[in-house]
């Protein structure tokens, strides 16, 4: 009986494996595709080399004045010299350690959120963080000199506004979302009205309102600081958007969950807190992070009502007589900072989504 030994399988032809196949399939599969590949390379060649030339090879990194920028490229000396202003605004030099400590605490909070187990610790830290930050930054007690909020600025202010905005608007948003889903007609109407009203107008009008009209709402003598007014405006504005995100989550929860909670004899708040909201928030996370990202970007609007956030600081320093014509470097720097923050937020949200995905499909 003849024996036919199993032949070793031949490797696919050279053109069908490895890098060559990848290039053939992804870049050169048809004349059209070749054309697009060339087009893409042309676009890249138009963007990347000039940018690298401007930002790195021709750029100036060392020096202290504008005169030190002799090359054709970017003058990063400007960013370097003004970095303190970009990060802390006009915060007094002697008190800078407080700003630094605040940032350290904020970073510490992230670790607490990552490693602490019981939920109440997490929630507690999230609520305490902005309060502690504001008290520490403002001072005016126990020998800490008072630093007026008008002195706060730069990235510090951007972070304060966005963190406080996120932390404060979230519970309001949840309440509004529950109100909108409520069976009680008056509560529902009020919530719908509020949400639609706020979502229909641009943030800038709300900020104008907060800075010009809000003081009229209170008895004479009560004067809010400009920052607080901006915070109130931003918080109430974003709450409406958060409410809509949460509502989306609430609507995605199967009816059976509500009925099961009712059958267990849970009251309304128990039902929401223990059964519905944890699931609804989970579903809403991608959209919530989207809202947080846009809140973070929107903080730059406070510039228009005269607060000095990161972008406003750059605008201001670029008008410095010793540094005229440095807008480009400033804007690119700010764009980079914002980009880092927003990009890591969306990256984090994707991780969180995966982490929370209890839908065991595969």
């Amino acid at each position: 009986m003849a024996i036919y030994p199993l032949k070793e399988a031949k490797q696919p032809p050279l053109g069908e494996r490895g890098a060559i196949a990848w290039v053939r399939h992804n870049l050169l599969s048809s004349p059209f595709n070749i054309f697009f590949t060339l087009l893409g390379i042309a676009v890249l060649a138009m963007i990347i080399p000039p940018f690298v030339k401007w930002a790195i090879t021709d750029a100036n990194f060392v020096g202290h004045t504008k005169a030190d920028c002799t090359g054709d490229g970017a003058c990063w000396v400007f960013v370097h010299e003004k970095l303190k202003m970009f990060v802390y605004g006009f915060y007094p030099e002697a008190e800078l350690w407080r700003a630094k400590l605040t940032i350290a605490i904020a970073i510490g909070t992230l670790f607490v959120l990552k490693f602490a187990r019981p939920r109440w610790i997490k929630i507690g830290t999230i609520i305490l963080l902005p309060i502690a930050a504001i008290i520490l930054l403002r001072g005016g007690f126990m020998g800490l000199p008072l630093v007026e909020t008008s002195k706060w600025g730069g990235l510090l202010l951007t972070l304060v506004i966005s963190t406080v905005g996120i932390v404060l608007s979230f519970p309001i948003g949840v309440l509004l979302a529950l109100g909108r889903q409520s069976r009680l007609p008056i509560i529902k109407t009020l919530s719908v009205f509020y949400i639609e009203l706020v979502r229909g107008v641009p943030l800038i009008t709300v900020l104008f309102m907060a800075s010009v009209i809000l003081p009229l709402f209170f008895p004479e003598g009560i004067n809010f600081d400009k920052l607080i007014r901006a915070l109130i405006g931003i918080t109430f504005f974003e709450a409406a958007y958060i409410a809509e995100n949460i509502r989306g989550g609430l609507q995605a929860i199967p009816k059976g969950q509500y009925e099961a909670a009712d059958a267990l004899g849970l009251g309304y708040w128990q039902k929401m807190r223990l059964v519905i909201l944890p699931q609804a928030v989970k579903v809403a996370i991608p959209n919530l992070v989207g809202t947080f990202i846009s809140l973070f970007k929107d903080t730059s609007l406070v510039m228009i009502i005269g607060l000095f956030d990161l972008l406003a600081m750059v605008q201001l320093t670029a008008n410095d007589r010793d540094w005229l014509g440095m807008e480009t470097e400033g804007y690119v720097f700010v764009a980079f900072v914002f980009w880092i923050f927003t990009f890591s937020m969306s990256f984090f949200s994707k991780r969180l989504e995966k982490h929370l995905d209890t839908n065991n499909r595969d």
Partner: protein
Amino acid sequence: MLTLLRNEKVRGILYQILVITGFLIVAYFIAINTAHNIEVRGIKSGFDFLHATAGFDITESPIPFSPQSTHWDVFKVGLLNTLIVSFAGIILSSILGLIIGVSRLSKNWIINRLAAGYIETFRNIPVLLQILFWYNVVLATLPATRKSLNFFDSIFINNRGIFIPNPIFEPGAWLIGVALVAALIGGWWIHRWAFKRHEETGENFPAIWAGLGLVIVLPLLAYLIMGGPVHFDYPALKGFNFQGGKVFTPEFLALLFALSIYTATFIAEAIRSGIEAVPKGQKEAATALGLTPIQSLRFVILPQAVRIAIPSIINQYLNLTKNSSLAAAIGYPELVTIFAGTSLNQTGQALEILGITMLTYLIISLVVSLILNWFNAKMKIKER
């Protein structure tokens, strides 16, 4: 009493009474404080200011405006400018968003990555920063008027804006407009007829080409019949600036470019997720039926993708309109800049002016959501 409190209905009513009382108390508190503060500070109230002379000029206005015009005119100019820049932005961002969105789905790796890079970059940078960048960096560094970039002696680009020839319509030009409208109606009718015939007989008719031909040929015929009643007013350098023609100011352009580029990223994502949301089986079924890739895109994928993508695209249009209010940072004379800005500073009547401004945006939003609801109802899959 206690059992009554345990009744859900009674409690519901009680809650609502509590909420409404709280709401009314706060509203009352705010109202009396405001009234008092307005009196103490000597702020005028009422809407008489709308008929008062504004006393300032507006750099660009689609309707005649002079310092003698009223604040009501300021409002109208602001609203029109908001609508103009929003409309232009919607067109531009749609084109850009479509290109980027389709590129994002391309099988070509480089194109795909380029589109992704575009989206991730511009979506994550505040639009205000982008507006300032265009205004203070890109457009401010264009050459001065005397060294304008010159295209065929009819288009000039310099740091005062982009100057293009302006069409001037002479008396006979109405026929061209009539012809255009007739062509549009005719095109629509052909489309319907072709669709019906296709449904009945299965025969195809190149309705798109026929319609396109109609839209081009009819106005052209009208133009020739009336002996060319349109001519162009070319911009020309006179003294320090260009005269004549139509100018797009740097404020307008900065706002338009920044808003379009920013919004295009969201539109591109909407288009991508719309197309990706169509189940794979649909494409496979279309291929199994023998449809070509283009046919399956045209008849199977796109109709379903559009249904998913359009609502979020329309929302982006609304966002673009609302973001146009950021013009306040560079001084393009739209609603917020001149009405909620200059007029407010002149009259001091913040309550009325901000009220009108917010109401205007609210009405725009409501109209758009009505359109959206109508669209959603129309596009809803008709199931059994």
